[in-house]
């Protein structure tokens, strides 16, 4: 059943404009309009310092959204990314504050990986819909973070550890290097490895993937595990950046991560999109938030902004006829 026959709202695009081209062109247009408007409104916007700031924020945002992108490409969703990040961040910050940086890093990564693997098992073996399994995990991870922190805040992390967020290499902040490296790595994984190709195959058509003999369950568990691992990694970057951690660390991070993936043009029905898109989405999101700052908009509006962005970008792709609707 093709998308255009089941969805009354999807219009046919002109023949010279493919679905993917529509997504890419609309994002580039949004980016150009944003940059032009903001540089006209605020002369400060195009300064080197501000741009570096925007890209640093975009990189951190990208690291948080990278794992989610993989899950969405495989046709699932991970609503627990923010909460798992929060839990991993709290544990790591406490350990690092206690002087054990290596153990903190190890714990953050393994907690992330563990939560991700549990998500994967629940989705594939117990067959719980992914949004429900990861939504349950959201509350479990958040509850555990509150229990562990007992309402305390950990702040003032080791300067050496903080370098991963505050340091510079060749005049460029280290988070930007981290974001770039992660993007290249994941792009490579998605396009050259068996796991990467399976992600697209499973997201595009799970039945076909299974019938072709692919170990779908095993690969899906790996994808959720990878997403959790990346949440744990993102937690390290985030706590290094804000130099503190409390149990509410992950509360506000889910919406922006989903917004970055949607803005990046990855289809929520799986199989279409990529990690580079999410990087572009993170940059757009960072520019919007930076613009709101420059214009003096209250921070209270941020989640309305990200919520609106999610709705608008998904709506635009659907109306634009992009291959989003595969429900029968």
């Amino acid at each position: 059943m093709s998308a255009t026959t089941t969805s009354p709202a999807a219009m046919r695009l002109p023949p010279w404009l493919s679905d993917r081209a529509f997504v890419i062109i609309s994002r580039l247009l949004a980016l150009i309009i944003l940059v032009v408007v903001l540089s006209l409104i605020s002369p400060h916007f195009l300064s080197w310092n501000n741009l570096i700031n925007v890209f640093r924020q975009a990189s951190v945002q990208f690291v948080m959204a990278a794992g989610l992108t993989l899950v969405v490409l495989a046709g699932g969703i991970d609503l627990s990314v923010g909460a798992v990040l929060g839990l991993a961040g709290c544990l790591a910050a406490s350990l690092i504050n206690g002087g054990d940086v290596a153990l903190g890093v190890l714990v953050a990564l393994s907690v992330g990986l563990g939560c991700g693997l549990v998500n994967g098992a629940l989705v594939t073996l117990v067959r719980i819909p992914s949004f429900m399994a990861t939504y349950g995990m959201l509350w479990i991870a958040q509850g555990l973070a509150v229990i562990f922190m007992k309402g305390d805040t950990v702040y003032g992390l080791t300067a050496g550890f903080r370098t991963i967020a505050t340091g510079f290499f060749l005049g460029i902040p280290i988070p930007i290097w981290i974001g770039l490296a992660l993007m290249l790595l994941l792009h490579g994984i998605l396009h050259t490895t068996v796991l990467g190709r399976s992600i697209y195959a499973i997201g595009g058509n799970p039945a076909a993937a299974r019938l072709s003999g692919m170990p779908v369950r095993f690969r899906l568990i790996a994808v959720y595990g990878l997403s959790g691992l990346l949440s744990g990694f993102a937690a390290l970057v985030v706590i290094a950046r804000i130099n503190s951690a409390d149990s509410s660390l992950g509360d506000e991070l889910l919406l922006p991560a989903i917004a970055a993936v949607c803005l990046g043009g990855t289809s929520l029905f799986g199989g279409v999109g990529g990690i580079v898109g999410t990087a572009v989405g993170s940059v757009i999101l960072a520019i919007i938030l930076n613009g709101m700052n420059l214009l003096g908009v209250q921070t209270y509006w941020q989640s309305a902004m990200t919520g609106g962005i999610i709705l608008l970008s998904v709506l635009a792709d659907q109306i634009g006829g992009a291959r989003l609707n595969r429900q029968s």
Partner: protein
Amino acid sequence: MSAAGIRPAGTGDTGLLGRLAAAPGALYLLGIMGIVLTVWTPGFFGAANLTNVGLQVAVLIIVACGMTLVILTEGIDLSLGPVLGLCGVCSALMIVNGYSLPVAILAALAIGACSGLLNGLLIGVVHLPPFIVTLGVFGIAQSVATVLTKGDSITGLPDYMRWFNDGVVLGVPVPIWATVACVLLTFALLYHTKFGRYVFAIGGNRQALILSGSRVSLYHVAVYVYAGLLTALASFIMTARMNAAHPTIGIGLEFDAIAAVILGGTSFEKGRGSLSGTILGALAVGVLRNGLNLLGIGGEWQIAIIGVVIIVAVGLDSMRNLNA
């Protein structure tokens, strides 16, 4: 097929064991909690505590009624919690600024209906995934509520607002009356109108509905609007109970409501489930929270425990469907 729609999942076999296996998880949870609480905490079966549980679950049952319809259509509504906060904040602001109660009620209903309409249009007409749409609306409602109150709560409400929680009519507290009214209304709509039959059919076999030329989208949108309206009503009880309106008061309520629906045996697939199951489920969640409080287990553990309970309930449900 139509009969299967109103019975809990997997009621094919007739033996006692089969029936037990098919009973919704809420029954087991209620049973376990009942035994545990009677043994450990003597106060549990006292009239005072049971009334307390009733008042606590009133809001949950009302919101869960709407959530049941949403989940029956194979949807989800994550925005109901923040929408409750937004409705409460708006009506409280209007009352504090001198508007009359009926105007404030109408305003809250309008906000609930509008957010439901937005959800419904994007899900039922444009066919976007429900969890992503309602998550977007979640963010918007949350933000607007916080902006309106600048993050504070609204206090100084007139005394008559307390009636929504403390009032007693014919010996029964007002929240219980409100809950009974909402349940009866939902029951009538779900089982005795064309709307209700569509709710089951949208989840059960939407393609057939579309092919038969029905106006599916209209009913699909109406489901989300109805959920929004019920949430707006519930916001008054919540505001009265707190004697203040907080922008974040509703957060997590959507989670309890989903838990109630799932524990009540309503399935995420194929439009299977029942309203009576949801009420059992809401009672189970209420008793669980009350019981954890009585046992001295704090709010932070409750979050994690209910997270586990919901996953186990959905997991059991999906396992059962695999075997059926």
